[in-house]
């Protein structure tokens, strides 16, 4: 309901935006988190929470859209869909029927860096779910009668998420302009003309290349003891053979950004123009110690809610915008994005809004942040760590996304302590160093009022 606070995920990767929020979460101060590695290389993390007889079981594979071969965009996500099509041992539907039979919930998701599958189940079902999931790690069987209708499904998903959604299309264009060389520039869901050509052989080849115990992390959160989860994992996942040829994820990296870029997307259905700017910045994995935490605090102070600089200045004081926000998602294996967003009030042009936005950024770069706003931001962010402990799914997703993007369990546990240490100088330095327009792409979304636009779709 508080519409004003929603950062409309202009990016297509809706889920990654959700995870960005979660990544502010959770300090498991006294939770007994266990971290095991099986002889075949599979990592198992157990986050006990015995309040309700429920377990969240997730398997995360270290492969995402950024690992696709050029020309095959959308393949990682397509395979995610096809993983529900059955194996030699468990034909189509049997896994889902077993999930439904116990009232469990299942789903899966794909980002640029990882692909994950999960079930939320009554505690007693964990071993059975691990057995199904271990079977599907190596036993997938695909035939065209299953593959081809599912390709139609992902095309409809693309229509639903992107085709019918001008803000999502703006996000795609910004990504494509921001990343000159890195595959993060492609949409996670793919470009339609390439999705239309994806085949069964593409999917099976990708599966054989990346799905293996030594490329996966299993996260179990909820009503289970670590040793019990370990025993079940050994009996199920433990039987899968290690892959000898899993390659490091060495994606083409970005050259130093040197040009201020801007673009405009016009669409006849745009009733509310928006401004979105993304900067290329370090992720937790690529940053020097402390840099990523300073960027997180900076994003919160600049654009995290009603007290933030951008909201106060643009929406409340100067009244040039109906919404304004900033965000930063530190969980990327390679470079990350720092985003700034604003929607102008009627009668205010996008260049006017951009100038006012730049003034807010320049103020932080030039004068830094106050001790009071620093403290407020830090205490708000760290409190989320306590709130996350109330939600086993949040905990599982937080650890999973971190482990998929180069972090360790102890990195996650140390997050609140590192946020606490961020100084006002570090926040200002981060603004000065990274909020450089030459590192950014600024996108305008406007209404296309031309006569041709009315006719074509």
């Amino acid at each position, binding site marked *: 309901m508080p519409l004003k606070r929603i950062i409309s995920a202009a990016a297509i990767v809706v889920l990654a935006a959700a995870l960005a929020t979660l990544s502010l979460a959770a300090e498991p101060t006294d939770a007994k988190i266990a971290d095991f590695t099986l002889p075949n290389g599979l990592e198992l993390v157990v986050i006990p929470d015995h309040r309700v*007889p429920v377990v969240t079981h997730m398997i995360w594979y270290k492969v995402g859209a950024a690992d696709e071969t050029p020309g095959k965009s959308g393949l990682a996500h397509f395979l995610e869909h096809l993983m529900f099509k059955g194996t030699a041992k468990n034909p189509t539907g049997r896994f889902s029927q077993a999930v*439904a039979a116990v009232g*469990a919930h299942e789903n899966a998701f794909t980002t640029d860096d990882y692909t994950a599958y999960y079930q939320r189940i009554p505690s007693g079902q964990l071993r059975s779910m691990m057995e199904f999931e271990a079977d599907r790690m190596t036993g997938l069987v695909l035939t065209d009668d299953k593959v081809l*209708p599912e390709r*139609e499904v992902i095309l*409809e998903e693309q229509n639903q998420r992107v085709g019918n959604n001008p803000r999502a299309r703006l996000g795609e264009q910004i990504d494509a302009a921001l990343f000159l060389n890195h595959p993060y520039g492609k949409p996670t869901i793919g470009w339609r003309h390439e999705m239309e050509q994806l085949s069964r052989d593409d999917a099976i080849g990708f599966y054989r290349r990346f799905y293996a115990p030594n490329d996966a992390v299993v996260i179990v959160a909820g009503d289970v003891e670590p040793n019990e989860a370990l025993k079940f994992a050994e009996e199920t996942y433990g039987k899968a053979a290690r892959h000898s040829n899993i390659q490091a994820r060495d994606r083409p990296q970005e050259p130093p950004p040197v040009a201020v870029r801007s673009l405009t997307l016009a669409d006849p259905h745009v009733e509310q123009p928006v401004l979105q700017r993304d900067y290329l910045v370090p992720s937790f994995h690529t940053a020097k110690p402390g840099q990523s935490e300073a960027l997180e605090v900076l994003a919160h102070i600049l654009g995290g809610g009603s007290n933030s600089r951008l909201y106060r200045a643009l929406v409340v004081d100067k009244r040039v915008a109906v919404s304004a926000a900033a965000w930063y998602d530190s969980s990327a294996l390679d470079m990350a994005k720092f985003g700034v967003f604003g929607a102008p009030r009627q009668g205010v042009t996008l260049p006017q809004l951009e100038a006012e936005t730049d003034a807010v950024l320049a103020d932080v770069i030039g004068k830094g942040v106050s001790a009071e706003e620093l403290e407020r931001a830090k205490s708000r962010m760290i409190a989320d760590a306590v709130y996350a402990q109330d939600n086993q799914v949040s905990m599982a997703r937080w650890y999973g996304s971190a482990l998929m993007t180069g972090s360790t369990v102890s990195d996650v546990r140390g997050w609140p302590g590192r946020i606490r240490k961020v100084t006002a100088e570090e926040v200002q330095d981060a603004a000065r160093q990274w909020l450089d327009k030459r590192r950014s792409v600024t996108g305008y979304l406007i209404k296309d009022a031309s006569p041709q636009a009315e006719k074509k779709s």
Partner: protein
Amino acid sequence: MTRFLAAAALAALALFAGAPAASAMTIEKIVSPSGIEAWLVQEHSVPLVALNYAFHGGSAQDEADRAGTANLAADLLDEGAGDLDGKTFHERLENHAIELGFNVARDYFHGSLRTLNENRDEAFDLLHLALSAPRFDADAVERVRGQMLSVLRRDSTNPNSLASRRWWETAFPDHPYGRESRGTLDTVARITADDMHDYVRRAFARNELTISIVGDVDAKTAGALIDRAFAGLPAKGDLKPVAAASPRGMGRLIVINLDVPQAVVAFGGQGLARHDPDFMAGYIVNHILGGGTFSSRLYKEVREKRGLAYGVSDSLVWFRRAAVVLGGTATRADRASEALAIVEAETKRMAESGPTAEELAAAKAFLKGAYALSLDTSGKIAAQLTQIQLDNLGIDYIQRRGAMIDAVSIEDAKRAARRLYGGGMLVTVAGRPKGLTSSAE
């Protein structure tokens, strides 16, 4: 990129997915020192408190030409209250990491609060201010109105919103249930601070209040906190009655032309009241037809076999004075008529033959097992307890629910299926669906 996106969010209310049994929690009925009742679940392992509450009287209380009043008021409660202006109010919330949520549905105003235990007094004091002394300052009203108008302008070309709005307007013409809680561009422009003060005065009263509280508190502390927030409210509200209604337009197809690649479809008809003896049977049957799992009939026929859509589902929606079953899907324009024909054929088949014994058994197992999943965070538990209270299901409902599901026979299921799907559907489509045109009125 989740694999399954629950079709367009077409239901007007996010109602709880019913729910079966099996949690060890104990629900206590408590009474605060000032006499306010609440349900409490003590949960001491995480140092937080989650409150969920509701007042009778949601957007159905809005005047037709001021639709959106309750919703706009809810958006403004934390924008200045008592002697705190909006800026100070927000700073106090954030300094203490206190989360207040306000949401308006047709029948109810819903509120939530989440706080760390150490800040609970401050949290309940701020809630008290927001509910009892909202300021509706002119500058805040204009700002938040501008935000709402921006959202409504976006909605005006959004196919999901267009299909949904037209469905409700057609099903409930001249009735408050036919109007969206957020109102329209015209009505929101007219709302005044006085309208909002009037809504608050009529709805935010102790006799209209339902409270659930979950967290690291004992009964005595919970009672004291409840009084901090609610004891100062007036004893009695002043709500307008809402007339009983049934959805109209069955058999009609309405196409809203919009040049988008994908057509968005809303379909539905008469539902079952929450206290109808067939409600549980209908709930199970609906799960079999289009509940949000990978094994529903609609999912298999529309998505899995034919790849016509990413999501398709339907659900029961119940109000105090009406009930509907409402579903949705989104499909490519050139195959929209095929997708709709399948939805119609499947609902007809369900109405005529009901589910099979195997489907019924599987759905019962699912719905019983899934219950614990809806109760795994403090906030979800509190929200569920509020809904159980609003629906007058009794404090032992969670224990009884499994047996209620088991008691549904195949005859019950067939009867409920006939009642839910035998009366035809009202269908709205936004997009350029090839081969579909609006039927005559």
